[in-house]
């Protein structure tokens, strides 16, 4: 369990730079500094993706649902896996293809493996969903996020908008009043011109289902 917590926190530490649009737009310093630090920013993105992958990989060798329930606290796993899978599902969109150094940093990332790791998270949500409303909702939200990925290939912005709206409505429905740390609001900053505006700063993870 220490491993899950470690990789989850590491992904969260680096996640602000996975979609640095908001930070960079507010930056008023010299261009030279920014260019000089871009390598560090790209490395941070990579560490975020790797940490998310490591989180998912911990679940690759699960024998069955019992080993998941008794070996891990599923109530923490759901939030960790939402964090991991949301990163993995959108990671490819976060790469700046106009930056040679960033493309170089990510050149040995196996995106097929990234997709497979995200799928593992979905499978765990599915396994837990028979008795966990949180897992059921997590599964539905991540499934929609997965389906929305066509935006990256320029096909449509509608899918992502719909996915985001679904997540927002889920939040409202369950009266979730949370801040940003575990949220999916960061996703709305990726290619922000293509995204609908997030109506509130509430995250989407660990929804309280008793209301």
């Amino acid at each position, binding site marked *: 369990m220490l491993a899950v917590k470690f990789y989850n926190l590491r992904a969260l530490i680096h996640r602000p730079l996975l979609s640095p649009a908001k*930070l960079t737009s507010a930056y008023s310093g010299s261009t030279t500094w920014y260019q000089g630090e871009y390598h560090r920013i790209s490395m941070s993105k990579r560490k975020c993706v790797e940490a998310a992958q490591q989180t998912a990989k911990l679940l690759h060798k699960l024998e069955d649902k019992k080993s998941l329930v008794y070996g891990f606290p599923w109530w923490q796993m759901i939030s960790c896996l939402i964090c991991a899978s949301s990163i993995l599902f959108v990671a490819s969109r976060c790469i700046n293809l106009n930056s040679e150094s960033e493309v170089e940093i990510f050149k040995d990332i196996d995106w097929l493996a990234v997709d497979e790791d995200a799928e593992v998270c979905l499978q765990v949500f599915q396994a837990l969903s028979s008795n966990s409303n949180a897992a059921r909702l997590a599964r539905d939200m991540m499934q929609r996020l997965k389906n929305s990925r066509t935006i990256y290939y320029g096909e449509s912005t509608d899918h992502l908008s719909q996915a985001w709206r679904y997540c927002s409505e889920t939040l409202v429905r369950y009266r979730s009043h949370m801040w940003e740390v575990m949220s999916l609001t960061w996703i709305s900053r990726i290619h922000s011109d293509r995204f609908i505006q997030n109506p509130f700063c509430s995250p989407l993870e660990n929804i309280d289902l008793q209301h």
Partner: protein
Amino acid sequence: MGDGNSICGNLLAYIDYKTLIHSTVTIFALGSCYERIAESKSEGPVNPNSLQDVRYFEHAVAISQRHTSKHTVEHVSALLAQSFYLLATCQTDQCWITLGLAARIAQSIGLHVEEGSTSRGDATSSRETNRRVWYSVFVLDRLLALQLGRPPLIGDDDFNVEPPSRQSDVDLVDSSDPKQGWVGDYFVAMIKFSEIIGRVYYNLYAPKKSGDIAVTLSNIDLLDSELLQWRSSLSRKLRFDLSHVFESSRSFQSQVCRHPITSRS
């Protein structure tokens, strides 16, 4: 578990043990909950009235509501157990409230500070219990803050308590398996980890976090280094990044079950 209701009824007769009963019945609820989740096969909505763990928990809450006039360490422990059940059943918001109550009671009875003098015997044992209960609240507060994205209730400078001690402990040592060593190592590691969680929150996610990318970048580097340092400082049996060829992975997975509150005899 089947005779839980009659057990509850009998236990309730011992009014002096009300807090113990509260904790015990809550632990029954947790056990039933684990069993239900692990054994279930069908998908679809579950009728809450058919759930044994719900009934146990309702008993525990009823006991708690009738007998909470005294603020004691045991009361804080019982509320912690209640918080774990609420977490396990995804009643996260209610857990936040219950844990908040536990933290406030803990502070009101002074668990967040301890005297400097060395004590012996029962006083030492009692102090050790207080430490564990306090840090259980602290760790859960930080984990919940991370999970919910809300500010931790307990700041780093808001308490002065020594970490749980190995020396005065007998019940955290698993005598059946000497290789397992001191189970408290995991707990101490979690305390350190929880401190980092607080810094991650305040530096990167708090409402007043810096919007300057240079500051953010610097904070990320510092926090990442701190996290890696934490991992490096773990005892070998807790190092999840090293190979443990001859050891069962089960011992690592079962770390989660070694929480001081639930493993106390």
